[in-house]
């Protein structure tokens, strides 16, 4: 049972569909590329079914121990595949009959497979390979529309990604040299007696690479530019799916690869989390373009998520809080991006004037998603924040929880700067800015906003899915 491909069915579904889609894209006429979209959605649904089956089975390590299939991997599969489905839904109209429409879905599938592999990887080399599998398609997705801003965003994203990839590789080199193995359980055992400074150096370098995926300080520079320069579907993708992979990988790396008490990584992550949320929230204050505002808002959200990583391993709460918050953040953030995709002509906050007058349902979805990002009950992120704050206080980082609460209150300001014109101001004299992008993006916005509320109300049923021990 060492090499059991069936255990990787969800990942294989994505990769096989991607290869089939890539081949088909060479033959399909431009206006029939919806077939690839259908194929991609089918692969995601198939992957979800396979994940549900895998959840019933026992956790196991496959491929000579380099890949763990445990509750965390299964949670990542559900969240990533769900997110990919939503992204496919909101990209139906913006990309319809685009020359590279099928390639978009192919790259999306491969990047999703990479994000899942990041979480499941139980070996430094596999983590590095998965890091690239998640990164390289993202550069293509960001540059896909190929206008000036898209290409520039792609170049910046690429340069930083290549840089942090090397840093991560250098860290992996040092850890492999110290531990004489690249597998996490072996490292944990061997690093216990290794020189402290060298272990710290290696761990910091590997963390830096993962922080790039997550978009946390000090690797957050790419986020606003990539989101602003990319198309809306690509922006929705880079702000959610790679972050899921990076956070899951960081959680596993800290709890399984590093020996407890050898290096105080928890404090390092806590400080990173504090810087990330504060920087994201304060930079968001001054933004007037909706995509940039959402970009900085995701940096702020990542700060809250890193708090759960900081207390990883201290109590059982952290893991379930992380996965619940990730699921909630993903669906809420994608709901906001779906609204942006539905109004392709509205670029700035003031363009949303009078949205409630023209499109009451859409304005409602926007309100649910933005207030959801703040953490208003009964949305999912309210429960998520409660869970994370509880885990952090139990883990002994009360100052971090206080800072996070202050940040949450402050973040209300910039979300309201968007909502107030949409609800209270008179409609704009140019109704064309609020013209509809199409039925699919509108439907996605309504569905995702509804899911935010359902996930919040049904939290008691969903929360335990993210819990359960990681494989040792």
């Amino acid at each position, binding site marked *: 049972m060492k090499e059991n491909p069936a255990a990787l069915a969800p990942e294989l579904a994505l990769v096989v569909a991607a290869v089939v889609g890539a081949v088909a894209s*060479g033959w399909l006429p431009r206006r029939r590329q919806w077939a690839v979209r259908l194929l991609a959605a089918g692969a995601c649904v198939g992957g979800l079914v396979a994940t549900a089956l895998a959840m019933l089975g026992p956790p196991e390590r496959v491929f000579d121990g380099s890949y763990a299939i445990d509750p965390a991997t299964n949670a990542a599969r559900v969240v990533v595949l769900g997110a990919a489905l939503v992204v496919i839904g909101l990209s139906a109209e913006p990309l319809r009959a685009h020359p590279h429409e099928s390639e978009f879905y192919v790259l999306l599938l491969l990047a999703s497979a990479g994000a899942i592999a990041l979480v499941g990887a139980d070996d430094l080399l596999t983590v590095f390979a998965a890091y690239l599998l998640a990164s390289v*398609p993202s550069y293509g997705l960001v540059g896909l529309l190929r206008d000036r801003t898209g290409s520039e965003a792609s170049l910046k994203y690429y340069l930083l990604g290549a840089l942090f990839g090397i840093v991560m590789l250098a860290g992996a080199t040092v850890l492999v040299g110290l531990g004489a193995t690249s597998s996490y359980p072996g490292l944990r055992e061997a690093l216990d007696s290794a020189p402290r400074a060298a272990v710290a150096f290696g761990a910091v370098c590997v963390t830096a690479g993962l922080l790039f995926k997550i978009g946390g300080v000090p690797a957050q520079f790419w986020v606003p530019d990539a989101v602003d320069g990319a198309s809306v579907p690509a922006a929705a993708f880079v702000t959610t799916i790679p972050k899921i992979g990076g956070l899951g990988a960081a959680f596993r790396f800290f709890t399984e690869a590093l020996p407890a008490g050898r290096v105080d990584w928890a404090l390092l992550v806590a400080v990173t989390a504090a810087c990330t949320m504060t920087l994201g929230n304060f930079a968001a204050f001054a933004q007037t373009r909706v995509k940039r505002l959402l970009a900085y808002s995701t940096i702020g959200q990542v700060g809250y998520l890193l708090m759960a990583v900081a207390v990883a391993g201290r109590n059982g709460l952290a893991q379930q809080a992380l996965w619940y918050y990730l699921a909630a953040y993903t669906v809420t953030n994608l709901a906001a991006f779906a609204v942006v995709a539905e109004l392709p002509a509205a670029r700035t906050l003031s363009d949303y004037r009078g949205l409630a007058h023209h499109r009451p349902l859409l304005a409602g979805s926007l309100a649910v998603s933005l207030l959801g990002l703040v953490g208003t009950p009964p949305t999912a992120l309210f429960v998520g924040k409660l869970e994370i704050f509880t885990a952090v206080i139990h883990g002994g980082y009360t100052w971090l929880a206080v800072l996070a609460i202050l940040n949450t209150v402050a973040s209300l300001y910039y979300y309201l700067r968007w909502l107030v014109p949409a609800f209270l101001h008179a409609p704009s004299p140019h109704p064309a800015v609020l013209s509809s992008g199409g039925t699919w993006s509108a439907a996605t916005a309504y569905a995702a906003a509804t899911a935010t509320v359902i996930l919040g109300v049904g939290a008691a049923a969903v929360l335990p899915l993210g819990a359960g021990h990681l494989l040792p």
Partner: protein
Amino acid sequence: MSIHPAVLAATIPDSITFAIAAAISVIGALGVVLSRNPVHSALMLVMTLFGVAVLFVEENAQFLAAVQVIVYAGAIVVLFLFVIMLLGVDRREVTERDPLRGQRAVALLLGILGLVEVILLAGGKWPTGAHSAAGAINVTGRSNVALLGDAVFTTYLLPFEITSALLVIAVIGAVVLARRPRQAGDREQPQIGGGDIITADVLGPDSLIRPEIEEATGSSDVHEELDKSSFERSDP
């Protein structure tokens, strides 16, 4: 700086090989950074790659040395040179501004990290002859290639499969990013240098792309395929 006793203990041919290869690598690396002309940088990169390949042979990694020369020097650097020639970018550069925000800070951090690494690696006590996870290197009667192949297809099968997916991405990514846009008006400035040749009608003669015919004839399959299989898929 006095010569490390370990070097004296090594055989003289080994020491000389190491010294020359190391010198070539470092000079090449400095050349990459210091050359004004990117073409020279690329050639200096080849020098470093050869130096490192020699060191690979010294360290009993013959297969990797061959791959290093064939793939790196043979393919990647040629790709670099090709892009340099294609774009005609061997021009002066301005260094005052910092266009990628925070990039200098990051690079400074990297420099410090590198120095820390020098100290750590030179002074660290590394385990030697430890329990090996993927099989020993020095097995009499088995070649380097056979041992490497064994490890790739057993212990490291999963990362190997992931890298194969990466190659698919590379192909698709290159197609998505580097295909020429159709509209001539897309260009902002007239080309100079080698760029002119490639953006002229050589790659995508407009006669091959007939969107108006497609619209007129109700998009028959023949025309759609022509539309698709020519170098550009036209925008409506």
